[in-house]
């Protein structure tokens, strides 16, 4: 009787209903486990309660709490809303923003158990990952992203007022089309400081205004300056910083006809794209990390008698749904579930750390049997992205359990070929193929600006270095090139070449700009 009473006193909550006091109590209990016991290092959190409608709102603008306005977000909202209303999709339980403090949205409809799960998942799992992973450290600035988005939103709406919504829309349309080619893939020395970016923007403009002098325009050109001393154009290319793979960056800096505000909008889209770049490369790890953390925390809460058996069952039900992976011939199959893959690999790593088999010792001599699963996880979370993570940690046992196999799909062949399966001779190949599937560099076409015909018609020349014989999809490409030409102001050509033989595989000749954007 007494022990029963004691265990009741330890319970965080009993019923399904939540209120602020309970949420706070649960958050504090989770924090004790996550920080004091597990030694995680998340950002401070801000938990925000929202309704399902607001969740849909947030969905449509890339999950960000504030964003500039564009019709495409309205389109996404219209579709999401319809799917949701028809019951074809559910809503995510949470959204978490990589910012400091880490914003964590929880929905009012959730039960108390779900709120606990969501907080463990987002405010500790994701937040730890955001704060400690190398990619995020190098590329995103959690301290000022919200300020920057606020600036971006205001800037875009000011432009709409001043230059008309239609003009701004054209620029944004074009910039969005190039968004995936608006990132620097190789980190610079220091992380970007977005606050300073904003100040520099203002300074640049002031400097231009102060130093503007119409008289320079009237100076006659000296004859010898026109002479062509650079037959190969190497110096020209060098001076333009070519080749350049960040197309938005190139246009922002070099496009001859853009107005100042148009460049600034390109810059905004580029900064946003760069901000999301690490997230695109760490879907499996990020979700794996968060799922592993919430799993550990919820188990711990149950072990210490802080949640009832009932809510633990409820948690297990939700958790099982999240990490469900249908097989390839299942009607429900739609690719590999990143939650399932990430969680699976991490749990498998734990097993290898604690109870390794001989096979594991052979494959993972570095950490098999080191009895420090948490430490091994933390290293993985900090140092890897999806591709390298899978390449490093996917074990033969896991491949057998999932019965993974690799299929070669050659467009010229009307049959598929099974290349490797989960057996001794196939492990490495399957693993390599799966890792490559998460390699953005293989996923997104490698397109670079290679030259500009400055003396002639100022044509911009792009080159797609074709990987595995996969050419660009024509309809989309023509539309993007049209956008690109509009920004550049002169014709744009694109050639597709085989990087090994330098053979020309395909070419899009001279896509002219619409004259609208003069």
């Amino acid at each position, binding site marked *: 009787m007494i022990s029963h009473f004691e265990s009741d006193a330890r319970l965080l909550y009993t019923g399904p209903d939540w209120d*602020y006091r309970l949420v706070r109590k649960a*958050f504090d209990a989770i*924090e004790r486990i996550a920080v004091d016991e597990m030694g995680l290092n998340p950002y*401070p959190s*801000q*938990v*925000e*309660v*929202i309704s399902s409608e*607001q969740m849909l709102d947030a969905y*449509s*603008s890339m999950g960000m709490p504030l964003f500039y*306005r564009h*019709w*495409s*977000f*309205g*389109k996404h909202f219209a*579709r999401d*809303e319809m799917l949701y*209303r028809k019951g074809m999709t559910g809503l995510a339980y949470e959204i978490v923003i990589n910012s400091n403090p880490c914003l964590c949205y929880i929905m009012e409809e959730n039960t108390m158990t779900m709120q606990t799960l969501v907080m463990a998942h987002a405010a500790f799992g994701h937040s730890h990952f955001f704060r400690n992973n190398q990619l995020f450290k190098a590329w995103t600035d959690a301290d000022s992203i919200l300020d920057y988005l606020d600036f971006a939103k205001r800037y875009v709406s000011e432009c709409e007022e001043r230059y008309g919504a239609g003009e701004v*829309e054209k620029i944004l*349309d074009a910039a*969005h089309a*190039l968004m*995936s080619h608006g990132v620097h893939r190789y980190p610079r020395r220091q992380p970007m400081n977005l606050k300073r970016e904003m100040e520099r923007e203002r300074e640049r403009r002031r400097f231009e205004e102060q130093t503007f002098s119409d008289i320079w325009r009237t100076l006659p050109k000296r004859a010898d300056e026109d002479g062509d001393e650079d037959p190969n154009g190497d110096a020209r290319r060098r001076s333009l910083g070519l080749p350049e793979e960040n197309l938005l960056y190139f246009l922002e800096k070099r496009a001859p006809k853009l107005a100042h505000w148009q460049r600034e909008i390109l810059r905004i889209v580029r900064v946003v794209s760069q901000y999301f770049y690490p997230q695109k490369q760490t879907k499996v790890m990020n979700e794996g990390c968060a799922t592993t953390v919430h799993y550990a925390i919820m188990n711990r809460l149950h072990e210490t008698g802080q949640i009832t058996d009932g809510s633990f069952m409820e948690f297990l039900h939700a958790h099982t749904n999240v990490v469900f992976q249908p097989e*390839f011939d*299942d009607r429900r*199959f*739609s690719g590999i579930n990143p939650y399932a893959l990430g969680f699976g690999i991490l749990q498998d790593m734990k097993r290898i750390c604690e109870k390794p088999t001989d096979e594991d010792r052979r494959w993972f001599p570095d950490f098999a049997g080191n009895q420090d699963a948490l430490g091994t996880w933390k290293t993985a979370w900090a140092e890897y992205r999806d591709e390298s993570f899978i390449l490093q940690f996917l074990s033969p046992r896991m491949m057998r359990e999932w*019965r*993974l*196999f*690799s*299929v*070669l*799909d050659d*467009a010229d062949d*009307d*049959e*598929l*070929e*099974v290349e490797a*399966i989960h*057996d001794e001779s196939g492990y490495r190949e399957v693993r390599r*193929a799966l890792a*490559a*599937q998460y390699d953005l560099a293989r996923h*997104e076409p490698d*397109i670079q600006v290679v030259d500009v015909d400055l003396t002639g018609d100022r044509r911009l020349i792009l080159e797609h270095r074709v*990987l*595995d*014989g*996969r*050419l*660009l999809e024509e309809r*989309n*490409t023509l*539309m*993007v090139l049209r956008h690109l030409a509009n920004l550049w102001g002169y014709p744009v050509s694109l050639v597709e070449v085989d990087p090994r033989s330098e053979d020309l595989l395909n070419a899009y000749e001279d896509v002219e700009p619409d004259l609208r954007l003069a």
Partner: protein
Amino acid sequence: MVNIVDRRLNPKDKSLANRQRFIRRAKRQILDAVRDVSAKRKVTEVGHGEEQIRIPSDGLQEPSFRKDRDTGTRRHVVPGNKEYHAGDRIPRPDGGGGGRGSGGSPDGEGEDEFQFTVSRDEFLDLFFENLELPELARTQLSKVEQQGIQRAGFSVTGSPASLNLTRTMRNSLSRRLALRRPKREEILALDREIDRLERTGKDPEGLRELIRQREALTRRSRLIPYIDPIDLRFNRFVPVPRPISQAVMFCLMDVSGSMTEDMKDLAKRFFMLLYLFLERRYRHVDIVFIRHTHIAQEVDEETFFYSRETGGTLVSPALREMERVVRERYSPAEWNIYAAQASDGDNTPADNPAVVQMLEEVILPVCRYFAYIEVAEERGWESASDLWEVYEQLVAAGHPMAMRKVKKRADIFPVFQDLFTPAELRA
């Protein structure tokens, strides 16, 4: 210490601005889609509730450089191998392999259609953008007033019918409490006590005292009435002028043999637009269908559009029928009356003077607007029809009347737009 913020009360519809931008962008496609949807509906059903529409996605794609799925080689790693070994060859599954592997765009791009829901208001706004009731009708509209009555608090006088019981009884109760009017239960209790004493005959002194008390109470309750005129409160009403917010729309159509189904379809579309348009302006819109050959008859919508009649063509009976309906049911003082007539332009020439007289003397004075649509098939030659010539004179005389010719479906909306675009926007 964690911050917990309740954002549920934040302004909703954060994405409204985005939605408006999207609708503006997809305007042409949405209009086409809505027009298709509306063709299948009854006149009065169009635009009710939400419309689920599918629109083609041209102009709405968000293109990006992406690799073609049909070139080169790809590798997919998928779970759930059952019988395959390395080197096995398997037939390519249909439908692009059910989204296997890395392909399949996450945002549903590549679909040729995009499906979503527009609300009634959004649809109507798009449909009637820039359209206005014609100048003429509008000025009259603002003048049209009806004496309405509106509640305006309470008064101490009034007719018994407007007595406000609640207020009155509240006053009465408080007065009775304040003046200590004896309660009925008190008197009854006293009566019982007196009765008991009388029957036992014991305490005559006490009995006398009780009787005295009883008399005092009775007197008091007679002096303080249950309801005093001072308690009475009446609902007060004041007359207010109120613009008429109801309209009736008369659809007149020639259904004689010369009107083909196509022509009727054109007419239906026009009526539909007019109905929607009026509905946006007025709180309540009635619709009256009058069909005519050489005789005219008020009918329901089904009969109006789909039953065939044979006979000669006389327009004046239809006008006379309309006049009858107006007289019986729609007093011009209370209703805004609109009329739309669709015809192929035939009329027995002998009837023309009667038509002019009816319109000038009876119909046009009570109408806000009279729209005449001549649905004509391509005849190859342009000659004005009988009615056209007659109506032209009326329009020239400055009556609230408009007329247009319509030949094919695509003409309907432009003609409608033309009829209702304010003059200053028309340039």
